[in-house]
């Protein structure tokens, strides 16, 4: 749970602390405890209490509690713009008199009145005048409070006595942590409970609402009688029992269609090939001219008879990639040809089909006299090109050049390439969030998620996690229940994030002929992993018990401002970029070193063109490859790729070129895919897990669980798959069946919770 700190503009000596939004100062949710402890122990100079003007009655409940803390308070009535629109009126002066503190009007959405409210709070803090609470409860309650106040020790300030007295009466055990000596107040509690025939906390809650109801009539005027508001009408449709899920499915389809295929692809291509590639044409100026020129060049110089003969021969011999090359030549598409050439040229050469001999290549292996995109339109060179130029200009040493270009720029650039697509997705999600729809989604999904032990609120982290796991895990913060939150953190990264898409795409294209079902099945596996883990974990002792009851305030629907959406998008995106700049930067360097140091002619040394198998990384891969042998991918490259996946999932693709898969069977590749989708996420996400779990033990448990779960599923899929295709071996099959049996046992054994729960209730009663 985080508090946010900032400074007030124009007042260098003023620090503002933004506490989490809460309904009361009771100890039931993490937010409330965080906010309360801050207010009691840090004792800020003043409190700016922002209340929602459209439902004052509910919001003043917290205000009456804050007034008891003995800290100067300014109440700011928010949504003054909505109030004006609806014709409702809040009389600030009357409210001020009834609450005993200054009251100002603000509109957070429009940004009006906020500075005035802050100034007022600063002024109040400087004058150090504490406004004593003026609200009064029924005489007997007041008598009990003052009796407890008298019993309080010297360690509690005079102004705070009312707060502590009420908390003691409410039997709030957590407050004791903030007190040195605790007086015995059971007599007062008993007297009150006997008189009202209710428990003390309910009595005081009722007293607060009674007081608020008594003043609300004078302080505000509603223009209309109770009628369905626009938001209510929208909710009738959007959360309707039949239409809710279809509407949600359509909205999600649009969001993902736009952010993954259309705008997203465009943005990712630009980032990968332009910004972190050779460069790009500013606003596309010159792109069409260049494309024409280059295709013309290809038809004249590249796509010769000799080339067609070689490619056709290779095609007849079933050399991988021949079809792609043939297609590109037929279409006269130089871009596609160049890409296929880059991927398959080595395989061709190995099989004895030398493409280079029939291509117009210059001394450096580039196409001779090919048109330069920089000659057309407005050309902006990419970052690697600029860095290269700079390094050339300062005559950089070869090893340093390699470290910077291949290690740092290549590694970090590959990761940052996902940022644009992610930002597009986050814009949509921020919009859905701030217009109020996301809260409804949690409500709608709760029905389904409850069945496997998660709350509807777990859905939002998973949605965000489909972009990037880091902000996804961070979004789990809104789940109050500790168990539910931990479980959400553990399972969120099962959903394929943006960086896992290249792995899926690579395996789908290289071994499954680009079959779209591979991608669909990846998401299906992710969802299934969440469901299975949810049910299994729920049946363990650690997570036993029902998910916390679902309660969530739903904001009124409204159009979000552009600034709010952009800010939210940027905060999520930035959390990812920051990781790329720190953890991924460091890991890129380590990996670069691992692949460039190693066995050079029999002794340890550095080599620029080192074969992977001779490098330190290669030795590590060889050393651990046996671990993955039962999963079907026990070769050094696959082992290295999996380790690299810890740095960033798309690194898997970097290690594992298209060719490396050719030797794999479809089953082994699919098992490899499953393992990499489900095992521990990248270091950045592990860092996020660590921060949100706030415990090393839980972090290790989460990572360990994910790895073991991934291993188990891959083992089952590979070994049983082998058996059905007729290649099974006895030990593997037995192991897989045993694992499967254990999994099924964990899934279908009865819930233990009923016993533990009863015991808990009993002990509680025994104590009371």
């Amino acid at each position, binding site marked *: 749970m985080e508090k946010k700190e900032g400074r007030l503009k124009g007042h260098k000596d003023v620090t503002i602390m933004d506490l989490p939004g809460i*309904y009361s100062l009771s100890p039931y949710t993490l937010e409330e405890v965080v906010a309360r402890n801050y207010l009691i122990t840090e004792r800020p100079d003043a409190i700016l209490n922002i209340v929602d003007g459209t439902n004052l009655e509910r919001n003043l*409940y917290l205000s009456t509690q804050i007034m008891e803390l003995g800290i100067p308070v300014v109440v700011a009535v928010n949504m003054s713009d909505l109030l004006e629109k609806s014709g409702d009126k809040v009389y600030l002066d009357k409210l001020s008199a009834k609450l005993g503190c200054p009251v100002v009007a603000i509109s957070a959405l429009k940004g009006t009145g906020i500075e005035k409210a802050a100034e007022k709070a600063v002024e109040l803090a400087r004058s150090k005048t504490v406004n004593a609470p003026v609200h009064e409860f029924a005489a007997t309650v007041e008598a009990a409070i003052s009796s407890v106040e008298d019993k309080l020790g010297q360690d509690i300030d005079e102004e705070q006595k009312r707060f502590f007295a009420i908390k003691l009466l409410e039997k709030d055990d957590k407050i004791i942590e903030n007190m040195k000596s605790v007086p015995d107040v059971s007599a007062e509690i008993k007297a009150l409970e006997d008189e009202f025939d209710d428990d003390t906390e*309910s009595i005081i809650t*009722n007293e607060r609402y009674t007081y608020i109801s008594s003043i609300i009539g004078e302080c505000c005027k509603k223009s209309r009688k109770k009628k369905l508001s626009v938001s209510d009408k929208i909710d009738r449709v959007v959360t309707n029992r039949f239409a809710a899920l279809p509407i949600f499915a359509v909205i999600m389809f649009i969001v993902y269609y736009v952010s993954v295929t259309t705008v997203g692809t465009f943005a990712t291509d630009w980032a990968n090939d332009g910004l972190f590639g050779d460069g790009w044409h500013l606003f596309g100026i010159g792109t069409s001219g260049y494309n024409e020129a280059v295709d013309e060049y290809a038809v004249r110089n590249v796509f010769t008879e000799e080339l067609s003969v070689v490619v056709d021969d290779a095609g007849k011999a079933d050399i991988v990639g021949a079809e792609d090359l043939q297609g590109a030549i037929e279409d006269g598409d130089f871009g596609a040809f160049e890409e296929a050439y880059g991927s398959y040229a080595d395989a061709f050469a190995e099989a004895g089909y030398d493409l280079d001999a029939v291509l117009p290549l210059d001394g450096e292996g580039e196409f001779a006299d090919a048109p330069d995109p920089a000659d057309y339109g407005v050309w902006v060179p990419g970052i690697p090109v600029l860095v290269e130029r700079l390094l050339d200009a300062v005559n950089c040493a070869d090893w340093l050049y390699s470290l910077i270009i291949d290690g740092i720029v290549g590694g970090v650039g590959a990761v940052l390439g996902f940022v644009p697509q992610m930002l597009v997705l986050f814009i949509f999600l921020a919009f859905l969030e701030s217009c109020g729809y996301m809260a409804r989604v949690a409500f709608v999904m709760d029905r389904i998620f409850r069945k496997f032990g998660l709350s509807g609120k777990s859905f939002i982290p998973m949605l965000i996690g489909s972009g990037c796991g880091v902000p996804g895990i961070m979004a789990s913060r809104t789940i109050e229940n500790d168990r539910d939150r931990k479980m959400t953190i553990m399972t969120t990264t099962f959903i394929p994030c943006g960086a896992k898409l290249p792995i899926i795409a690579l395996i789908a294209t290289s071994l499954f002929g680009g079959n779209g079902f591979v991608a669909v099945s990846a998401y299906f596996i992710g969802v299934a992993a969440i469901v299975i883990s949810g049910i299994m974990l729920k049946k363990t002792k650690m997570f036993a018990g029902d998910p916390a009851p679902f309660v969530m305030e739903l904001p009124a629907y409204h159009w979000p401002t552009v600034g709010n959406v952009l800010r939210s998008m940027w905060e999520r995106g930035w959390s990812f970029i920051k990781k790329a700049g720190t953890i991924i930067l460091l890991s890129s360097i380590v990996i670069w070193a691992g692949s460039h140091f190693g066995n050079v002619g029999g002794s340890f040394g550095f080599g620029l063109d080192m074969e992977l198998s001779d490098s330190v990384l290669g030795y590590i891969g060889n050393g651990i490859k046996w671990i993955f042998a039962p999963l079907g991918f026990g070769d050094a490259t696959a082992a290295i790729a999996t380790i690299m996946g810890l740095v960033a999932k798309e690194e898997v693709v970097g290690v594992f070129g298209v060719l490396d898969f050719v030797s794999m069977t479809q089953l082994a590749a699919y098992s490899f895919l499953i393992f990499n989708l489900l095992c521990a996420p990248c270091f950045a996400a592990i860092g996020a897990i660590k921060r949100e779990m706030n415990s090393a033990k839980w972090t290790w448990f989460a990572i360990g669980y994910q790895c073991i779960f991934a291993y188990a599923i891959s083992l089952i899929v590979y070994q049983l798959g082998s058996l059905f295709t007729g290649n099974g071996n006895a030990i593997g099959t037995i192991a897989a069946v045993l694992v499967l049996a254990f999994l099924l046992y964990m899934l279908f054994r009865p819930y233990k919770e009923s016993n533990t729960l009863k015991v808990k209730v009993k002990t509680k009663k025994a104590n009371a």
Partner: protein
Amino acid sequence: MMPLSMAKEGEVNTIIKVGGKEDTRRFLENLGFVPGGDVMVISGTGGNLIVNIKDSRVAIGRDMANKIMV
């Protein structure tokens, strides 16, 4: 008297009693579900409800709604 989960959509009801475990009840009370207060069911899916309480919209699960008697 009936649980809130049985109330008709669009009808204004008065809360008579809030039951359940202590924690649950207090949580509901903090949200404004107090005896004597008005509550209106706006919509419901499978027992989960969206209700209007003290002029704000709150979504509550079925198990909670069953504990609020109107």
